[in-house]
């Protein structure tokens, strides 16, 4: 019971820090939005023509929402690294609170943040023509998938933060895979447009899979399979990263 209270307090601290850091907020919200409009302007017509009449925004917005979640994990990694180095984590560890609540507080707080940022991104995408057509349950499912996807990258971020030797190393180690996943996903460009040998990678990319799930949940299309695949990624991340994070933390 007290672990839950502690986690809540520490998650609240992380959210409060985020809300009080204008440049963090601007970065977390603005960058994905800039990307959204840039892609829409540059590739909109091009890709639109290649997707047999489907609207590009319907595919693009979910991917940008997911990207904002993965991109936010860079902030998680850097933030956790700063906490570790500044001594505040040592203070938490020397207090008689559950040691896991520090990790849990970080993950829960940043999960909430990821969903909030996703909501803002979705709202702006709405202005650009993105629509939910599946009813309130589908909207709920949409954000649940976003959280599931964020979960993978948040654990990756805390593991990287504990293993890295500098702040630059943390952001470097997270920025590269996040950016790669974005460009090697089926969100910007349909899978068929990639060279054949790259297509399996694009298909297995969690960003493509979760993107498919979000497309299904917002505009209609297959939902079950992509959600299951996203879930599989989340389970794999949980099995590998969570024990690793806990061990590194102890």
């Amino acid at each position: 019971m007290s672990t839950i209270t502690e986690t809540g307090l520490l998650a609240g601290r992380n959210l409060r820090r985020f809300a009080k850091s204008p440049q963090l907020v601007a970065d977390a919200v603005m960058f994905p939005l800039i990307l959204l409009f840039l892609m829409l302007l540059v590739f909109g017509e091009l890709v639109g023509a290649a997707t047999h009449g489907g609207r590009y925004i319907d595919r693009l917005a979910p991917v940008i929402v997911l990207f904002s979640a993965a991109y936010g994990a860079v902030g998680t990694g850097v933030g956790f690294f700063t906490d570790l180095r500044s001594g505040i984590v040592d203070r938490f560890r020397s207090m008689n609170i559950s040691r896991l609540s520090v990790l849990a507080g970080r993950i829960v707080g940043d999960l909430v943040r990821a969903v909030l940022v996703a909501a803002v991104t979705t709202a702006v995408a709405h202005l650009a023509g993105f629509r939910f057509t599946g009813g309130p349950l589908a909207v709920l499912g949409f954000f649940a998938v976003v959280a599931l996807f964020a979960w993978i990258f948040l654990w990756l971020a805390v593991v990287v933060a504990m293993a890295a030797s500098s702040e630059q190393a943390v952001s470097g180690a997270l920025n590269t895979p996040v950016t790669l996943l974005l460009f090697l996903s089926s969100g910007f460009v349909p899978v068929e447009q990639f060279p054949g040998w790259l297509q399996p990678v694009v298909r297995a990319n969690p960003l493509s899979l979760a993107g498919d799930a979000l497309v299904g949940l917002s505009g209609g299309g297959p939902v079950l399979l992509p959600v299951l695949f996203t879930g599989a990624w989340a389970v794999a991340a949980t099995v590998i990263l969570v024990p690793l994070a806990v061990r590194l933390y102890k």
Partner: protein
Amino acid sequence: MYGGGVEVEHLRKVFGRKTAVEDVSFTVEPGAVVGLLGPNGAGKTTVVNCLSTLVPLDGGRASVAGHDVAGDPAGVRASIALTGQFAAVDGVLTGRQNLVLFGRLLKLDRRAAAARAEELLTAFGLGEAADKPVASYSGGMRRRLDLAASLVVKRPVIFLDEPTTGLDPAGRQEMWEIVSGLREEGATLLLTTQYLEEADRLADRIVLIDHGRVIAEGTPGELKKRVGGQVCEVRAEPREQVLRTLRERFGDVVESGGTVTVRGADSETLAEVVAVLREACVEADDIQLRRPTLDEVFFVLTGRAPARRTGEEARS
């Protein structure tokens, strides 16, 4: 409250190939203040980290407030307040928000945490800055907040890891007053410092540590005695002549910073020095008998000078 203070027996800690702490033993009696004194890298922080359950021991045993560090870490954590070397507070939050957060984590309810925060902010001279973000605080204010954060809930044993490192003289003075206050309240205190004057001023007993080993232990007075009696300081011109004259008569004479010092002195030495100088027709500006400083103790025991404050002469 618990029984014991801090007991450390043959503590050993190895990081990779480097032995950080080797066979360190000492005791802090309940209500006593012990200063763990040593230069940078001597192993002081490692000892504190072992005692506060942040890192596991590699050998020996230690107990804090009656709880074994290895066997009952939760019990240890419930008995200690730790103020680390770096101000471990949240820079984005305000001072008040920090203290409320720590209070709530330590199971105070909302109202009690707010009241305790207010009390500590006032007591530590942070009342005016209470609702400003900690990032805007001075170094001294951050340290005070850090110490306050560790005292949100009263604990029988307090660890202070280099509480004044990096502070300006005014900040250090304020910190010393706060620590003296804790001492008067009867807290058991283990304090690490590289500053001899700090240990001399705050601690009942000093454990001198260098390269991970205890090299001396005792009250400040006992340690000074180990260097051998007192020293006689002479300020007089011309210095070379004074030095020569005194060296002819006494064994251990050194010169530094315009002062000629005769070591191993007592009151008879003082009289002799006065006589010798009169014979040589030297008029002394100042002659005094004093106990050796801890710098001198350190030098005698380790063969090298201890770490120094930079930018100012901290010795009294």
